Each structure stands twice: as C-alpha cells, then as structure tokens.
C-alpha cells in the first residue's frame, strides 16, 4: 500500500505505540482486500460490548489508553452491554459491570464520546452523501451507505478504534465506486406494511444476496418507507446476509443512476410470499407460552417509543411474561418527558438505556431469568438469539404486546 509521509511516520512509531498499532492493523486488513492507499475519514463509530470484549479486549483497550493517546476525529460508541442503573435485576453480575466500567473509563481517556447507540444516523450526526466514515454495527453501516450515501465498510471494534486513532482507513470495498455497483436485482412482489414486514423483507433479500460483496438493487416499492422502516430493513439484511449496502429504486440516493446503467443486464429475482413465508416459518409459534418480549435491535427511535406507549396504554402484561425495551439515552430523555416511558412501565415493561438486548450477555440473562421463548418484532434479533439458547419468534409490535398481555403468542 502507498503511504504518505504522515502515515509512514505513524508506522515508524513517531506518533507513539498506539498509533503504530493502529496503522499496522489497518495495513494488514488493507492488504488482504487489495487497498492501494488510505482514505481520510471524518467520523468513527465503535461496537464494543463487554461480552464481545471479554477481559482480553478490555485490557487491550486500557493498554492503548494508558499511552495518553486521543482519537483524531469525532468517535462515538455502539450500545453498551450493561445499563449501569439496572443490571442486577437482569441477572448481570458485578464482574460484568466492572468490565463495562473499565472499558468506559478507557474510552473516555482516549476522547471517545460514549453515545452508546446503534441509531446514531437518527439521533447524533447522520453522515452526508459521499462522506467517508469508519462505522461499526452492521445496521449503522448499511443505513449510512444506502440511505445517506456515505461510504463505510463494516469496521469491527478494533478497526473502528484504529480509524479513530489514525483518522483514516484502508481504501477498499465500499470506499470505491466499483464496489457499490448493483450485482443482484430484486423485485418486491408483496408490499411490506409494518416494521416487522420491512425487517422480514430485508432478511429475505439478505439471505438471497448471501455475501458482503453482493450489492442488491431492489425495485417496485410502491410507497416511500420511513426512516424506521428502512432501519429494520437494512439491519435485517445485514444480519442475514452480511450485506453492507443496498439500493432501493426511487428512494436511496445512488439508485437512479445505477438502475439505468447496470440493472438491465441482471436477472430479476422475485421476492414473493413464498420467500417471506419461508423466512418466517422457523419463527412462528402461535399458542406457545412466551417468556420475554423484546423490542430492540435496533434501539427504538422516539417514533417507535410513542407507538409502543400508545399500544401499551391502559393494559398490563401477564405475570409470566417479561417485557424489555432498549433505546438510546438521546431518545430516552424525550420519551420520559412525553410520558412514553411511564406508559410502557405501567404496562410492566422495562426500558433499558444505552444497551441492546443481544449485546448484554444474552445467554447469561436468559438463564438467570428463565427466558427461553422470546418474541420480538425485530427480524434481526430473532436471527441472532438462536445461538444463545433462545427459541425466538416474530410478530408485529401490536401482536407482541397482545402476546405479553396474554402470556402466549397470539399470531
């Protein structure tokens, strides 16, 4: 890879050991993906929950922070694994909380802003068209690339941290025009209605796309989707297919030029009811007892919080079904002042702040609380949690609340 003088100085250690580690890490990854040089990035977003980090990852981060290094660009964080105001009742231990505290302290020492959110594109500073960034969390990346027209690869925690320290990232993948060209063409046969439908549609396309290096272009959406609908659509597509970019014709900013130039030679793949039913089938358990209903993955926007509060209003959950809601600190303040949190908690739900359910020791809290059958309107979370020992099921937001009220899955 070609390095400029500043980057060569980073590599030789002139900026200290943390920067040297960062650029060496970036060079290893860049060479594997044939990057020719580095590209400056304006923001970084790091996924790093304590379950993923473990003792080793926290110690690694602390060691960097001990060098008194600071990030060079605005850098924010993905959801935490512990809501430090509410962890013992979930069955999380003091050891888990201490790992979290140590990591937060190390990040703050490096100048990282602890936003703890996977919906920064709705709440913090959405990237703009053509902006090169280094974002983690697949949902953040696919939304930023597709809906905003920004440019980011999936940057795992270590690589996002490296980008924050060097202010750049290897120029490969979605930083390049030719990696953003559609490779698979999909036609929507049945229009999605609610958030769950959009998630399931994204999941079906992600599964058919099948690889990080495929770029779906999707045609014949009849009504312009909302930000929340695209959030669930993208998050599920990224979860099922590791897909970091889609083009939705007539909606996303790069789609129109690309559909004319590149789509006509691609075979049309119809996304029909069979594909949707096939995806939902493993997550259908009508009539079964439900242990926990979860709204998360991604964190809820203020609009989702309002909708959920409205559905919960005047009702109460079954004594045998818990309800967990995950949102960001930025949304939570507004949700409190608007009375949404009161309504959700009067229903018997618990609103966690700055976390996301699957990132907070999902196996351990499931075992501690006896949660096995889980219900959610998030196609992403039901895809993840099977490996954590849950029996996950899917339903709309309304059906989730009705199921929580009755203690069994209603549809």
């Amino acid at each position: 890879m070609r390095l400029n003088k500043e980057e060569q100085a980073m590599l030789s250690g002139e900026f200290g050991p943390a920067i040297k580690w960062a650029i060496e890490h970036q060079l290893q990854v860049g060479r594997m993906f044939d990057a020719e040089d580095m590209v400056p990035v304006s923001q970084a977003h790091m996924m790093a929950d304590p379950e993923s980090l473990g003792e080793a990852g926290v110690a690694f981060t602390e060691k960097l922070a001990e060098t008194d290094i600071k990030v060079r660009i605005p850098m924010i964080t993905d959801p935490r694994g512990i809501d430090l105001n509410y962890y013992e009742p979930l069955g999380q231990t003091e050891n888990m909380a201490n790992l979290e505290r140590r990591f937060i302290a190390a990040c703050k020492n490096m100048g990282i802003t602890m936003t703890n959110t996977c919906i920064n594109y709705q709440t913090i500073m959405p990237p703009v068209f053509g902006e090169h960034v280094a974002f983690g969390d697949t949902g953040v990346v696919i939304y930023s690339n597709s809906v905003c027209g920004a440019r980011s690869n999936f940057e795992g925690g270590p690589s996002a941290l490296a980008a924050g320290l060097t202010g750049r990232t290897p120029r490969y993948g979605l930083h390049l025009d030719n990696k953003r060209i559609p490779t698979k063409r999909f036609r929507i046969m049945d229009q999605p209605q609610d958030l769950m439908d959009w998630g399931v549609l994204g999941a079906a396309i992600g599964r058919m796309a099948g690889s990080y290096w495929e770029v779906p272009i999707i045609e014949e959406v009849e009504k312009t989707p909302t930000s929340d609908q695209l959030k669930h659509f993208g998050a599920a597509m990224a979860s099922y297919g590791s897909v970091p970019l889609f083009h939705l014709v007539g909606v996303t900013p790069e789609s129109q030029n690309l559909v004319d130039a590149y789509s006509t030679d691609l075979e049309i793949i119809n996304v029909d009811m069979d594909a949707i039913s096939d995806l939902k089938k493993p997550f259908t358990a009508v009539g079964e007892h439900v242990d926990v209903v979860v709204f998360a993955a991604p964190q809820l926007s203020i609009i989702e919080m309002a909708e959920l509060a409205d559905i919960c209003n005047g009702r109460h959950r079954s004594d045998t079904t818990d309800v967990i809601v995950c949102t960001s600190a930025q949304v939570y303040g507004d949700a409190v002042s608007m009375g949404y949190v009161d309504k959700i908690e009067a229903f018997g739900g618990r609103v966690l702040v700055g976390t996301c359910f699957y990132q907070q020791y999902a196996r351990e809290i499931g075992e501690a609380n006896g949660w096995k059958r889980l219900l959610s309107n998030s196609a992403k979370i039901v895809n993840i949690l099977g490996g954590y020992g849950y029996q996950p099921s899917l339903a709309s937001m309304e059906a989730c609340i009705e199921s929580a009220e009755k203690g069994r899955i209603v549809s």
Partner: protein
Amino acid sequence: MKKELKCHIGIGPKVEGVALVAHDNFSARYDLDRIKGVFSRPQHQLFGKSYKDVILVLNTAKGGVATAWMLYEMASRKIAPKAILFNTANTILAQGAALAEMAMVDRFEDGDVTKLIKSGDHIMVCPAEGQVIFLD
C-alpha cells in the same frame, strides 16, 4: 488429488492442523458457545462440534461486527480455531484475525474450498504466500 491450493494472500501466521469443514456461514456471535468452545446454533451444520485448535473451512461470514473482538477474546483463552478458511471472508473476520493473530485466507483459485478440503484433512495454511498445503 492436488497437493496444494492457491488463494488470495491473507492474514496471520503459518499454521498446520486438522480441517473441520462445512458449506455454511460463520459468525462468532450467532453460532458459537464461546465458553464451551462449540458451535451452539442448532441450525448450523457444525452444531455441537468443537472448534478448538482446528482449521475451520467455511463458506462466508454472516451477521454483525462482534466477531472482530470475539476472535481476540477466544484466542486469549486458547479456546479458538487455529485458522479459518473461507470462500469469501468479509471485512469483520479479517479485522478480527488481524487483532487475534489468527491465520485467515479466502478466494481459492480452484473453486469452492468447502469441497476442495474435507473434514479430517491435515493441512498447512500459509497466509503470506496465499497457499494451503495438504500434508497427508
């Protein structure tokens, strides 16, 4: 049978070991019980099998970014695969391999690596050369 396979240059040290193969995808978060060191997702073709000290041969990556930290955490406890071979890796797996100093290669010239290598094959992975050698 070929004595060696050519692939794209990869990441990590030269290692040798026994292959565990499936035409399935991979995420440390979605698929593993990292405490027990086994595949824990019931739908995964390697469900119940130990991944400790084997050379995993799989199709591609799936899902989220957590694997980048998790490979490092797994390696720190020495309950980790020696190497992972893919038809196509994604960025997260490569980043995780770099931090964990774990061997990883992808893009094989002769086609589907999950068909070219069988479970139980004794192989050497040479990431710097873009090469996998059959040792038996």
